[in-house]
């Protein structure tokens, strides 16, 4: 009781946070779970349909393509969006001049609303007067179809996504790098370690936890990719950019099949929970 009284203010703040999480995160999740077993039009009384929604979602002609595209997008986004920011952070960390300016430049795209960034890239990718093809032309290279070809559309979306989100990851890595005690580098240098050995034996072990956390966060985020296909390609051409989140949106808001959209959401959540559990375990092992 005394402990409770002493920490009353802290519990007050905690309650506010819990209320927010309950209303905006947990309640919708529970509702979606319930929805995935119901047939509803949001007006009339919902009907319990067991696993029918999961069967419907599975039978969707675009189901397989959506999962493959999502996994491919996640993989490509990790290749670009996981390693590149770390390298950029390493470079920024080594700089002695203009570090603040470059940090601002790297972070700038994050400040743009996603819709604005996407519309900007729509112009960049325009097969006619688009910036990218103008640049290719300046170097005497043939134009690319970018969003208008099934072979380049997905990677084009990955480029947009990486550009939009690289700044945040870079700053987090940079913060982690700046927390490494300089004595460790000094000791490594005294032992004759070059830059690569310092990165391998000091930087990476010291930032291991944050690297694991970022890997997890990026997998979770990129697997939910929606804005880019929605705004730029409509899932095309030839379903090349249909993702699970986009298919969910289509089912819910174009076909008004909220049940199968909920079922897809549950499937996606289960996959992401597996990743999360894996990450937690790795983190625990690391701490041990």
């Amino acid at each position, binding site marked *: 009781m005394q402990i409770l009284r002493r920490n009353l203010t802290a519990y007050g703040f905690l309650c506010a946070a819990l209320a927010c999480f309950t209303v905006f995160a947990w309640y919708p999740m529970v509702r979606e779970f319930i929805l995935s077993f119901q047939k509803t*039009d*949001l*007006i*009339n009384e919902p009907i319990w349909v067991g696993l029918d929604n999961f069967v*419907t979602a599975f*039978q*969707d*002609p*675009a189901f397989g393509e959506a999962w493959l595209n999502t996994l491919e997008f996640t993989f490509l*986004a990790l290749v670009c*969006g996981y390693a590149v920011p770390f390298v950029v952070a390493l470079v920024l960390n080594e700089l002695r001049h203009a570090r603040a300016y470059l940090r601002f430049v790297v972070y700038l795209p994050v400040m743009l609303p*996603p819709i604005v960034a996407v519309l900007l890239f729509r112009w960049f990718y*325009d*097969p*006619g*007067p688009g910036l990218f093809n103008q640049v290719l032309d300046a170097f005497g290279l043939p134009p690319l*179809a970018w*969003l*208008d*070809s*099934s072979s380049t559309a997905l990677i084009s979306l990955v480029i947009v*996504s990486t550009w*939009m*989100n690289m700044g*945040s*990851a870079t700053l*987090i890595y940079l913060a982690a790098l700046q927390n490494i005690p300089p004595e460790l580098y000094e000791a490594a240098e005294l032992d004759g370690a070059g830059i690569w050995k310092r990165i391998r034996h000091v930087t990476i072990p010291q930032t291991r936890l944050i690297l694991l956390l*970022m890997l997890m*966060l*990026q997998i*979770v*985020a*990129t697997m*939910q*990719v*929606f*804005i880019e296909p*929605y705004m730029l*390609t*409509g*899932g*095309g*051409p*030839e*379903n090349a950019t249909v993702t699970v*989140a986009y298919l*969910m*949106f*289509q089912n*819910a*808001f*174009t*076909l*008004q099949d*909220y049940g199968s959209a909920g079922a897809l959401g549950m499937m996606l959540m289960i996959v992401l929970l597996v990743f999360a559990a894996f990450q937690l375990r790795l983190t625990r092992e690391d701490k041990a």
Partner: protein
Amino acid sequence: MQRSTGLLLVSALALSTAACGSGSEPATPTAGGAKAVSITVACQPAKSAPKERQAWDDDVAAFMKAHPGVTVKSTDQQPCFDPKTFGPKLAGGQMETAFVVPVTNYNDVISKGQALDITPYTSEIKNWNDLRPDHRELVTKDGKIYGVPNVHYSVGLVYNRALFTKAGLNPDAPPKTWAEVREAAKKIAGLGAGYVGYGEYSGGNTGGWHFTQAIYGRGGSILSPDNKTAAFNSPEGKAVLQTLHDMRWVDNSMGTKLLVGWESLMVAMGSGKVGMMLGAPDVVTDVVNKFKGNVADYGITGFPEAKASLSGGEAFMINPKATPEEAKAALAWIDFRFNTVGKGRFDFARGKSLGNPVGVPDNAVFGDSPTGQAIQADRVKNASLPVTNYETYVQAAGTIPPKAEPLHAQELYAILDVAMSGVLSRKDASIDQLLADAETKANAVLAAKG
């Protein structure tokens, strides 16, 4: 790090109130002491069309003056009906008292109980009996009436007369066959970089929608007569895709950009660099009013070689939660704004003064009834365009039999988007394969739907 808030944001937007209400004076009680009624009505023009919006607001003020005790609040969601927000708005109590529904969604909305039975109140629509019986039939189920037919269209070929002239083509002799369409498109595309002879959709369900228009025109179907299997893998379906493929890759007359979503082709058309597209007369109105097209540039002709035309349209329906007083007031508004000769949308003199394309034959819900004839006479009298520009369309529309959209239209359109984007994005696309794949997928969907 990818921002996972995107989906949440869009969903939240879809679930939020769709539009800003326009300000209106509070209702004054009627002289007889009748209860004051407040209604919300959809379809107020957007802020980007200030003149049309002002005209709408003037109509609201005039209506409220004529109906003391009734307060009208407007919403300006664009387009008026958006399937993405329809269900959530209704569930969240945000749906207007009077809302608009496209013909493709009539059955769905009525069968789900999402529209009020307005049978007792149809007398509020003074010229109800002048509305075409076949359209009234569409909003009637089990003898009960659920809507007021508002728009009917059949497909034609919308074309840019200015570009025709520029390309050395005669705008008074638009194409009558697909061979002529191809020739005209080549000449327009030959005007230089950025010019597109023939524009076509390929995504966001619009590709499948236009494939349906095209296959109907050639006499084909999307579904078998019993609606159990796909019927588009046919000579007509192949002809549609082959023509598009050849125009895109052999003639190079369709531009290089895939058009995804309704507004993409409208924006292109409004830019004045697209020669032709399939569309109804409302395309001209939208291109001019919403996408800055030059009113004098556009014309419509009959659907080339058409054996049938995809028939579309919309009706106003009333919120199922409306009270009898609200339903009556909403229907009185619909009557005032949308069904009265010389008033509201049929105030052609005002439309002309606003620079609207008056003269476009954009409504057939009244057919040849006295109201229909009066509207047409008034339209011709106030025409801001040579009515002869649309003569070929009017003649053709009267002779081409209408054909309704297929069952499970949106699901099938999504599948057919793939075929459309295939021929328009790949030179080596196999049309047989694309159609066979689409057929397999469509049959699976149809089987699952029962």
